[in-house]
């Protein structure tokens, strides 16, 4: 059974949730872009399709401290600085970002489990938001994502005057139970209309027919050795924009910082586009931007499917299409490498 909240009560809802745990919602910034922010009274839910940074930050933050060391003479003391994460809610995650959590899970929750990631995952409740107004840069459907049924612990479906909620997990049911007094029963037929409408728009999207047929774990060598990479990568400037806005990019670096009082070992996002990503004391297996560029797309379109039963490492959110400084992106790569 679906429960509904009217748009007028949304503020009340946010107040209720944020009263108990930290709530993050996408909200509009002064520059017009949207970002997830910790909810404070008066904050408005953004109408934007997506945030600049993806929701992966909540489970895999850009930097996080792993462990601390105290050094004295020849002695080292290891300090476990992990703390149990507090419960939090991310409200308004789109289908693409929601899928990205599955992809991250396959990296971080497989043995040996990454306790830092798992800690956040265990304590986070994901409330997804069904899409109604996809952009031309959207191509999640190419990866089998249904933006009208985005998953997560709870799904919110926008319908004209409010939102329907559907619990998908136990955590989601608890979430809804906690706010039940704000909810009312909804008219289900409205939802079907909205979903149908979205489905019709999705069909009209310019990237609706993007095909993944030419990709997958079994295409490894032919794709790796394709002669298209040189042309595709020639204008890549080697920044990390695509990787940092990408909801599924999960590579990290581990570094030590000397605070003057001891060493803090932290990890931070890294980008396979960077020239020092694979730099070793002696030599570098990927010296050219071509190799680095290829790695990123091979990873998403070949290596991840090879290790995950064919599931791709891209969710079609379109962020890299919007943010690449030189407008090179996975769609252009896929179209160039496509076997027609």
């Amino acid at each position, binding site marked *: 059974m679906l429960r509904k909240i009217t748009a007028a009560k949304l503020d009340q809802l946010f107040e209720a949730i944020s009263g108990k745990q930290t709530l993050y919602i996408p909200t509009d910034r002064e520059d017009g872009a949207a970002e997830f922010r910790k909810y404070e009274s008066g904050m408005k839910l953004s109408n934007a399709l997506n945030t600049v940074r993806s929701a992966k930050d909540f489970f895999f933050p850009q930097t996080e401290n792993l462990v601390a060391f105290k050094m004295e003479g020849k002695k080292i003391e290891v300090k476990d600085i992990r703390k149990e994460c507090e419960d939090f809610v991310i409200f308004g995650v789109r289908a693409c970002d929601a899928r990205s959590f599955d992809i991250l899970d396959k990296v971080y929750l497989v043995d040996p489990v990454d306790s830092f990631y798992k800690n956040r995952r265990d304590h986070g409740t994901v409330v997804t938001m069904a899409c109604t*107004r996809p952009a031309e840069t959207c191509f999640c459907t190419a990866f089998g994502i249904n933006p009208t049924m985005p998953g997560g612990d709870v799904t919110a479906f926008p319908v004209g005057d409010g939102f329907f909620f559907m619990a998908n997990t136990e955590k989601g049911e608890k979430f809804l139970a906690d706010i039940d007094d704000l909810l009312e029963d909804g008219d289900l037929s409205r939802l079907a209309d909205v979903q149908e409408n979205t489905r019709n728009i999705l069909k009209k999207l310019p990237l609706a027919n993007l095909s993944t047929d030419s990709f997958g774990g079994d295409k490894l060598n032919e794709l790796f050795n394709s002669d298209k990479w040189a*042309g595709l990568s020639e204008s890549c400037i080697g920044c990390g*924009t695509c990787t*940092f806005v990408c909801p599924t990019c999960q590579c990290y670096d581990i570094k030590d910082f000397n605070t003057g009082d001891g060493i803090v070992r932290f990890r931070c996002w890294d980008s396979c586009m*960077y020239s020092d990503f694979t730099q070793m004391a002696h030599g570098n297996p990927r010296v050219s931007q071509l190799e680095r560029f290829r790695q990123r797309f091979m990873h998403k379109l070949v290596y991840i499917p090879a290790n995950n039963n064919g599931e791709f490492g891209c969710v079609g959110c379109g962020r890299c*299409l919007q943010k690449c400084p030189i407008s090179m*992106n996975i769609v252009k790569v896929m179209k160039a490498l496509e076997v027609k």
Partner: protein
Amino acid sequence: MQEAMIKRAKELLADGTVDRVMGWKKGEFSYDHTPAVFTSAQELDENFVCDDFTSANLSKYLVKETVRDGKILAFLKPCDTYSFNQLVKEYRIDREKVYVIGIPGGPKLDIEKIRAKGITGILNIRNENYTLKIETIYGVSEMPFYEAIGVKCESCKSKKHVVYDELIGEDGEVLDSNRFDMVEKLENMTSQERYDFWRSELSKCIRCNACRTVCPACTCEKCVFENPDSGIENKAAADSFEENMFHIIRAFHVAGRCTDCGECSRVCPENIPLHLLNRKFIKDINSLYGTYQAGENTTDKAPLNEYKMDDCEASIVHERGAE
């Protein structure tokens, strides 16, 4: 314009003057063009584009391109010619290996400005008498051309090409721009206000390094931020200090060398007005040491590499400004 460029490029390829052409390649949509090197007439005909969205500065690519053999044709907008000159001056580009065709500049548009109006599902954009007709899957939208101009073109410093082998179209003049207005506005704020402003801006930084990698002045063989021995190597701003430091050092390293091409702000995925930091240095240099435009020529000494006996003291910073 685009046709004239293609025509001329084909001629220069055909007569052997150049063996490559640096330009922009058509994208998936009407606005996402990519800098590209063309080597044949066919490629030029099929993919070469020059329109309201070809705002990327091509000059930095020539650092890499001129290491190769042969000569390359580069289409440079007026602002790009300054970057080009600066790179020639710093021995980063071999001038002999580039055939420069100056093309008229912007204003170029920024798709983000259109998106910020809530326009989405964009299929096609047409400029009709400086009104943009934007065809989307949700219907046709309109907006004034000038509201979609990219940050880097909002206050153009010059329509003049400072270097070229030939021109397509007319050469323009150095403009009396209002480019320091925002810097001045910030200068007039209180220290706390400025601090708050920059904290809210710089805390958005995701350290993607796009501003640095795109910057034509940032061509170091190895950036200090990537050099473990530099003492300031960092990959992600782990602390607000590092956010500040990265942007201070980035701007300081290009102080007196930055031509104000605006690429840093154009590419910033978080829309941080990074050009303001560069402009602050330019403004200070102009007012304290005399007007200086990096890239204007290849001979003037950079302001940080020279001095006058009667330069002002650093205490001028303490003496002026609000509060």
